[in-house]
């Protein structure tokens, strides 16, 4: 006896999981052991990948989807949602990740793009997707392709929050600009943004993005997470910042608490004490243009 009213993979079910992650921290992990540490520290989800962005940056070469054995181990190790990265445009990696049972796919600029023109048609999948964006137009293009969640890109693997801040402010400014336009101006705004008119009109009417927006790329100390929350994001991704630091467990817990209590400076001060060695930061100007991950995706 089947329930004819039952539907899976609906937009509401896909965006709904992102709604449940709000106010939380999603942590990059490369092993089942790290995934357990992240879950124990209060992560709302883990991101499974072969190497954290800082190591991808150091290793160079082509970065791809993680080994399915590793993804499956992480899926088995924790009870919180597991995300995994596929290359931009690599719909077969996405098919593989869906069949492995991951809960969200990140079509990510952290990996080497497989296609320099087209992103994955995310409407083809039951599993939801999160995609990176630096501004409103890029976010709406990804949503038009079926992304159920976006994240501002920042510059991954740097431990430098400056690009995350730039992208979040650019997003907020873009929304404020569109929200201030008259109806006849929205057609031209859609052209300028390179985004579908219907989505631009939705943003103008609702004064926010149609999906949850997390911040990513360069977040290291708890104060960085709270900064991004005060700037208006819905939650944070922390990549290299945790497991490239001296005391990952303590730092992970501190970032979780600072994300919840992002407006409470006393709590942020308390949790920021004695966290040990932070990851080494990189100045963005020292990164050659060709190695800037944020330039990937269009």
């Amino acid at each position, binding site marked *: 006896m089947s*329930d004819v009213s*039952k539907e899976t993979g609906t937009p509401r079910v896909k965006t709904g999981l992102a*709604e449940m992650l*709000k106010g*939380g921290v999603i942590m990059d992990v490369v092993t089942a052991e790290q995934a357990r540490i992240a879950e124990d520290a209060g*992560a709302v989800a883990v991101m499974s990948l072969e190497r954290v962005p800082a190591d991808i940056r150091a290793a160079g070469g082509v970065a791809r989807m993680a080994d399915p054995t590793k993804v499956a181990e992480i899926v088995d190790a924790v009870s919180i949602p597991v995300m995994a990265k596929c290359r931009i445009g690599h719909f077969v990696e996405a098919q593989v990740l869906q069949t492995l049972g991951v*809960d969200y796919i990140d079509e990510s600029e952290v990996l080497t793009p497989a296609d320099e023109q087209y992103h994955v048609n995310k409407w083809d999948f039951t599993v939801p997707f999160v995609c990176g964006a630096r501004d409103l137009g890029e976010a709406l293009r990804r949503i038009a392709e079926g992304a159920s969640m976006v994240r501002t890109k920042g510059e991954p693997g740097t431990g430098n929050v400056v690009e995350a801040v730039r992208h979040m402010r650019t997003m907020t400014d873009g929304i404020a600009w569109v929200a201030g336009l008259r109806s006849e101006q929205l057609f031209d705004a859609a052209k300028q943004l390179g985004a579908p008119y219907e989505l631009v009109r939705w943003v103008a009417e609702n004064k926010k993005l149609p999906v949850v927006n997390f911040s990513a790329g360069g977040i290291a100390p708890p104060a960085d997470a709270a900064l991004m929350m005060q700037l208006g994001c819905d939650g944070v991704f922390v990549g290299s910042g945790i497991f490239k630091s001296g005391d990952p467990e303590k730092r992970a817990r501190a970032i979780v608490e600072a994300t919840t209590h992002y407006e409470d400076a006393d709590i942020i001060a308390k949790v920021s004490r004695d966290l040990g060695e932070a990851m080494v930061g990189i100045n963005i100007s020292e990164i050659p243009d060709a190695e800037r991950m944020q330039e990937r995706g269009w």
Partner: protein
Amino acid sequence: MRIGVLALQGAFREHMMMLEALGIESSAIRLPSQLADLSGLIIPGGESTAIAKLMVAYGFYEPIRQHHAAGLAVWGTCAGAILVAKDILDAVPGQESLALMDITVRRNAFGRQVDSFEADLDFAHLAERFRGVFIRAPWIEMAAPDVEVLATHDGRAVAARQGTLLATAFHPELTGDPRVHRYFAEEIVGS
């Protein structure tokens, strides 16, 4: 009447918007001291492990139990339903709950995200069917005799009431349909 929404993590803003649409005053609860003077408390959907860690770290368990014993009505949705249950199946080691309601809840019982779904539900005390949105949802595996099962899906209990306690495995705050919120406010908080 003021209803608090536990705002440690998850979809707390959506609950507050639903209450606002019904003309009910609400407040975001981030610290136990903010529990005073509430008539009801909603524990929202989110990640039950993450919310539980933060509840322990900030000392929420005893104050909520005491306020509930003194009359505070409590509604848990999804992760919140796990947190109000006496017993949790498939919990992570050491996962503690508020243990308020005489139900046993199984985490992620309906499966992973690809199994997440929506379906129409016959919800007791509501005239028309209610669209249930289930996201990596739990179900209520066992309930004490004095627990009223309010809705089932595929033979599994997905909503239940015991006195001033309400548990739903699905997310009424994501539907824009305020009827379950009104039921909680009028029939449980207001009773």
